[in-house]
């Protein structure tokens, strides 16, 4: 049954997957970063390599050396220095690091798309001669053989370094606790940089090896690399040999599957399986393996991505301010109604995309889950509604367009529930990868199936017998967006909102105080999938037909990044993000929006909380400046001083101190001379807080001398004050206080 030829053919792809896995593992093991940008870097290096050989006419060996020995490690060093070192410095959460690597991915894809376009190029030369070694069915391509040799060398080298050398020990120490490593004289930055350079070099190899085989396109190639995450998930992000063996095994298995064929309903499904086994294995591993739950720590808690601490307090002022913002938003959203026909059609995309972004706001901004599969839900919503409209949805009658859009979106709910249930039990990177795998699987098995998704067109919409024109459709979209906002609003306020924020900020803590974490997350996930489905349905209606490229898995990553950039917890940010992406796509060449989002994503290192939070901060800053300008500076001095009066006494009041019983015990009627303190305070224009007064009184009762430090904190000009005079010796030459 097992064919040697097919096994050897399968080795080719398996070996590249293994190599990709080694690169990912090295980056993860040295930096604790699951590098989602691995595919982006692979793609970029492959594009540059192709440019050098095909366009500039460089010899293959020279291009390969430049690409793999200089460009790829250089990119790694650059990323470490500019993106990931600052994040590690400020102890950014794993979620932030994840988003940064997404930003790098989006940026590198944007660069590729911007420079070389989105089309697929099939002329990338292989670095190894296109020959075979061996004879008969036992012959193997030089390409594959070299890759296998490279894997072997890398594994042995890494194994020796990790277990036998001082550097390996340092690597483990840095991964364990980077700050502590620095405090222990271990050059953490150097370790991290070496890890990055090694990882990106292997990414470069992966890209250059894959490009001749799969064709070179920005999204396509990086998707192939992303599916090789199956390899490192199987290795539980630690074992190099397991990763290599898994890669080879999946490659061989996928190849062996091609010798069988299935007829009937599942023919297409099976054929898809023979080319997409990596995606399926990734999903199955993530769903079935209970041990993966703690993969990557708390990366799934996206609390730090959000800038707001709690649901609105609902003060009158806030509400008014919000009403103004909402009103301004409505005016802006209604503006396209006065556009020309062509421009209005382009504006159709904004509300639809905004709804998809809102669904991410629900799931990421409010319940703190990283979701990388939203395109899957949006696409399903689109497909369902179009099928309902055409009467092709199994088990349901044909229905008018508007109803079909609604029902289609609601039909996504069960799928959101089913996929959300295992997904929400995952945390961290596992959750991010699970949602990605769900999206990718849906794409491969549904959107890319010609029978299901080709030739699905949107019918004109009717309302009460009237055919809706473009303006009416835009208004329908507005209503849809309003429904989405209503969902967000209801999830965000009151009891439910508080509970969701509690879950986002501290899952265990929320569970400990009786919040039903699992059901809340599930609710958020399900509602989010429906909102995404509604957005998808409107998206396909605005373009007129279903297109699988609109909902391909890489879109999920781009969309998620965009939402985080514009403020993961901001509904307004989601709408602005949609308008931003659509207008960039209208005004600039293809791929520009990807590039723009990528650049913005990398600025997250300096703008925690996204653009929305930066804008909020700017507004607050301007408001404070204006307040400073127009409000009399009154009583600025006392603030830091009053507390220090109470505070100096607290060391003496520590219950653990040996003399505390004496100090805290209420003295037999002896009261401290508070009037002296008052006098000093008055001389300096201060007032004692009741708290400080009570502390002074209590403490002074048992241990009059405990009041001494007060003098140190109040070196008034009147040294004659009894308290100050008695404790002058405590003043340090550096001056007691500024």
């Amino acid at each position, binding site marked *: 049954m097992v064919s040697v030829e097919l096994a050897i053919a399968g080795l080719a792809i398996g070996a590249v997957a293994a190599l990709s896995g080694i690169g990912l593992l090295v980056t993860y093991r040295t930096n604790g970063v699951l590098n989602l940008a691995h595919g982006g870097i692979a793609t970029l290096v492959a594009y540059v390599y192709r440019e050098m050989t095909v366009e500039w006419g460089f010899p293959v060996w020279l291009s390969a050396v430049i690409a793999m020995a200089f460009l790829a490690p250089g990119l790694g060093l650059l990323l470490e220095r500019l993106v990931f070192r600052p994040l590690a410095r400020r102890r950014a959460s794993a979620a932030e690091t994840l988003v940064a690597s997404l930003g790098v991915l989006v940026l590198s894809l944007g660069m590729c798309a911007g420079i070389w376009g989105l089309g697929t190029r099939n002329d990338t030369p292989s670095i190894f001669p296109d020959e075979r070694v061996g004879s008969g069915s036992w012959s193997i391509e030089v390409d594959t053989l070299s890759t296998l040799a490279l894997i072997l060398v890398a594994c042995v080298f890494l194994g020796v370094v990790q277990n036998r050398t001082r550097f390996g020990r340092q690597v483990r120490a840095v991964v364990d606790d980077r700050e*502590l490593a620095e*405090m222990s004289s271990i050059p953490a930055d150097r370790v991290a940089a070496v890890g990055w350079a090694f990882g990106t070099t292997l990414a470069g190899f992966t890209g250059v090896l894959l490009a001749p085989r799969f064709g070179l396109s920005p999204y396509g190639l990086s998707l192939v690399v992303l599916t090789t995450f199956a390899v490192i998930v199987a290795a539980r992000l630690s074992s190099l040999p397991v990763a290599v063996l898994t890669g080879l095994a999946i490659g061989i298995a996928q190849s062996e599957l091609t010798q069988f064929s299935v007829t009937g309903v599942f023919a297409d499904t099976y054929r898809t399986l023979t080319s997409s086994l990596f995606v399926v294995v990734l999903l199955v591993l993530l769903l079935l393996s209970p041990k993966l739950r703690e993969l990557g720590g708390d990366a799934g808690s996206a609390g730090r991505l959000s800038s707001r601490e709690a649901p609105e307090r609902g003060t009158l002022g806030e509400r008014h301010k919000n009403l103004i913002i909402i009103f301004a938003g409505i005016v802006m959203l209604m503006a396209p109604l006065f556009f020309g026909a062509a421009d209005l059609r382009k504006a159709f995309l904004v509300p639809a995309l905004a709804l998809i972004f809102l669904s991410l706001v629900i799931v990421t901004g409010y319940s703190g889950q990283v979701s990388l599969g939203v395109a899957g839900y949006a696409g399903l919503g689109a497909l369902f509604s179009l099928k309902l409209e055409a009467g092709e949805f199994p088990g349901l009658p044909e229905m008018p367009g508007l109803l079909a859009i609604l029902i289609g979106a609601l039909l996504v709910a069960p799928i959101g529930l089913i996929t959300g249930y295992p997904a929400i039990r995952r945390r961290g990177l596992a959750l991010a990868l699970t949602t990605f795998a769900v999206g990718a699987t849906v794409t491969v098995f549904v959107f890319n199936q010609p029978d299901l998704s080709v030739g699905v067109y949107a019918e004109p919409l009717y309302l009460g017998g009237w055919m809706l024109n473009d303006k009416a459709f835009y208004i329908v979209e507005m209503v849809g967006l309003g429904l989405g906002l209503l969902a967000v609003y209801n999830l965000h306020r009151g009891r439910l909102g508080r509970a969701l924020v509690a879950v986002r900020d501290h899952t265990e803590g929320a569970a400990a105080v009786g919040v039903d974490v699992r059901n809340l997350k599930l609710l958020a996930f399900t509602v989010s999938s429906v909102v995404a489905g509604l957005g998808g349905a409107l998206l396909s209606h605005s373009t007129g037909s279903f297109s699988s490229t609109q909902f391909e898995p890489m879109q999920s990553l781009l969309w998620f990044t965009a939402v985080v950039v514009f403020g993961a917890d901001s509904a307004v940010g989601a709408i602005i993000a949609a308008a931003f992406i659509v207008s960039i796509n209208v005004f600039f060449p293809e791929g520009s929006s990807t590039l723009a989002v990528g650049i913005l994503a990398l600025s997250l290192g300096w703008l925690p909380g996204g653009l929305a939070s930066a804008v909020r901060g700017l507004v607050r800053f301007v408001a404070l400046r204006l307040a400073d300008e127009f409000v009399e500076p009154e009583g600025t001095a006392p603030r830091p001083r009053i507390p*220090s009066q109470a505070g100096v006494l607290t060391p003496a009041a520590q219950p*653990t101190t040996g003399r505390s019983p004496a100090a805290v015990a209420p003295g037999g009627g002896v009261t401290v001379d508070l009037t002296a303190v008052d006098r000093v305070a008055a001389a300096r224009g201060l007032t004692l807080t009741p708290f400080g007064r009570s502390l002074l009184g209590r403490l002074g009762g048992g241990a009059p001398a405990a009041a001494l430090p007060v003098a140190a904190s109040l070196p008034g000009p009147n040294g004659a004050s009894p308290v100050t005079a008695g404790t002058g010796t405590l003043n340090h030459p*550096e001056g007691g206080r500024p």
Partner: protein
Amino acid sequence: MFPSKDRAPSNAGAGAGPSAEIAAGSSASALAAAAAATRRGGTPASDGIELRLTGGRAGYGNVEVLHGLDLVIPSGKVVAMLGVNGAGKSTTLRVLAGLVPLRQGTLTWRGEVITKMSALDRSRRGLLLVPDERAVFASLSVRDNLMVVAEAAGYPDITPALDAFPKLRDRLPQRAGSMSGGERRMLALARALLARPSVLMVDELSLGLSPKVAAELFEWLATIAAGGTTVILADQYTEAALGMADLVYVLHRGERSFVGDPAELAHA
């Protein structure tokens, strides 16, 4: 109970002297010189001042924790830094170690300005912080925890640490993360010892430890201090800290609210 207690009375006896001098504004070198006589092998800086922080402001994000803190750490002394939770003790130590950047102010170490020096360079030159949490590499074995530091310090030999803490000898293959709190603190101090610090800062040594274990660790610190290492202790277990300290700082809300001889605080 605490070996340093033996020293405390003599300190207290002379206590009024040095601290009065400090208060009177005379240089701290007299104090340092007096102390150097009681220590072995100390190599105090020329003016007797190990670290000097002037007008230090630091914080996290929008929150400023230290509001213009002035500190003078004399060479070869034990300095206790006291204060309630949130007073800024840990932040002060992290500033001194280079983990939290100073927003304002200067930090000098033996006369050299090190405000911009990285944490790595500071630790390489012997300015060492044992933090209150995560003080060990939890996923590394005890042996690797010790080795990695010993190698970084240039003396790949862990026997001094094992001699100082014989209990660790039985635990060498064990993962550090699986040890008890007290053992972890022990390992952290052992690692610090291997790094051959000239200034050893210990944050919350006694936090979460039984009095007996804490006493042992304080005892060990006292011997380190007796060897001439400058020791800075941030602790709430004030009796022990005061017992061994030559100088006490009390912090409150990021400012200094008391500085002087422990005897004056303790006997007040």
